């Protein structure tokens, strides 16, 4: 019964975090310009790869029984890792294209003047 009480307060705390995170997320992401929406999406792909943690938590706790559960978790870990690694890398690659722009413009500008 103590467990139940702890459980409830955990739920309430977690719900509070959930609601606040929703508002913070909304406020932060609202400021992202349209121009960067594709990198935003691939970046959030990487962030939801955090579900990888869920797979790992269950796997390392050793509570899962049988090869089938382990297989499902292995697939979950693979999926999560693809998200994290692929998401951050491709976002980095894309944002780099946007970042190098001012330099390219300067080059073009000097060409024009010459």
């Amino acid at each position, binding site marked *: 019964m103590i467990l139940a009480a702890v459980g409830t307060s955990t739920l309430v705390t977690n719900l509070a975090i959930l609601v606040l995170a*929703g508002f913070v997320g909304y406020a932060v992401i609202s400021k992202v310009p349209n121009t960067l*929406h594709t990198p*935003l999406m691939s970046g959030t792909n*990487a962030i939801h790869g955090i579900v990888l943690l869920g797979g790992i938590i269950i796997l390392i706790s050793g509570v899962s029984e049988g090869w089938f559960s382990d297989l499902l978790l292995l697939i979950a870990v693979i999926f999560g890792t693809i998200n994290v690694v692929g998401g951050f890398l491709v976002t980095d690659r*894309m944002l780099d294209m946007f970042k190098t722009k001012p330099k*390219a413009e300067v080059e073009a500008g000097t060409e024009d003047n010459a």
Partner: protein
Amino acid sequence: MIRASFVTDPNFRNLLYIVAFSLFIYGMSGLTGPKTAVRGNRIAAVGMGIALLATFLVPYHIHNIALVIIGIAIGTAVGVPAARQVKMTAMPQMVAIFNGVGGGAVALIAWVEFRDTNGFEFTPTYIVIFSLLSAIIGSVSFWGSNIAFAKLQELIDGRPRSIGALQTPLNAFLALAAVALAVAITAGANDEILIIGLLVAAAILGNMLVLPIGGADMPVVISLLNAFTGLSAAAAGIALDNTALIVAGMIVGASGTILTQQMALAMNRSIMNIVAGGFGGTTVAAAGTDTTGGTVRATSAADAAIQMAYARQVVVVPGYGMAVSQAQHAVREMAKMLEAKGVEVKYAIHPVAGRMPGHMNVLLAEADVPYEQLKEMDDINGEFSRTDVSLVIGANDVTNPDARTKPDSPIYGMPILNVDESQSVIILKRSMNSGYAGIDNPLFVNPKTSMLFGDAKASVDSITEELKVL
């Protein structure tokens, strides 16, 4: 449980999770501009590394470490080359499949939780509810994203496929079936067939939601699936009592929700209307075609080149057609020639141009177009009246003045780029086929307009050649 040291104290782990999600939020806030964005993304990645490390700080013996390492190794082996090699034109597919695997992982984890607890025996009810919620949303997202991927990759026909009037009742039935199974499991039923049935019902629902949606509506669908995956991760976070998952999931959920809203707004359609499907690609009975009345004026690359070379300002309006013919680099070359002649070149980008939010911007950035020249709709619309030539490349519906003036048009009310306000308009188009919405565009017969028919890239290349000899 023995607490070996403060490192394996759950509070320490949770502190690290707080550090991790703070870095996510801080990193994402860097995406407000191109200068801080690269750093922001890397900061978020550091946060992910911290969250990952924290997960291993447990006060008990770590099991199955080999499986974890194998999983991470395989995921890395798949993710790295995919991220390195994917073409920028294929980003919508990439993001779709990434949405999918994220949702799939969540659904699989919920399934395993069911198995390991013998159908959630002795599990607090709220954990059961959130776990099943994550299973439903995750499964919908996985299958819906796979269909979106297959459509974008053209593995299956991109046109809407619907079973007609029965579609909405069927979707409602599938959703109810999934919820009913979830209720049964929450009430104590623990046969594994129930969770499998729940996952399957959600899977069919995912298929049914995306199959009827046409190519032009893809920006909305991808955003919506992005939101689903985020929310499923947040629900999993509550089920697993993991704050990092909750916060990360909600950030993604918020991001997907904002994008979905903005895309729907940019099409002047409700999200429900888009999900009900059928619009993007079907032939809408065009109400009162007045295009037939006018004549289309064709032009040559040489004339187009002269027109633009003597302009003060040229605004390029790219659409999905530019991506299809891979014309972005050719466009940049042409723009450089024009700039060398003292012409100011800007790019007007409609929020739903392309197959995902911001798609055109990425393609043009890849072609080294300066960030400052990429203009959002609201910023550029006031400038068209001061623009000598608007060059429309593979865009159609987003320039259709009917959206402003003709209340019976299917796209009436949709915000458009006001290219018809510029002095003259040159439209690069493959043929006189109508756009995705299947609606006539009176811009084509506007006296200001001339059409340059042919492949967009070939046309732009020949304009550049003509500019060189001018």
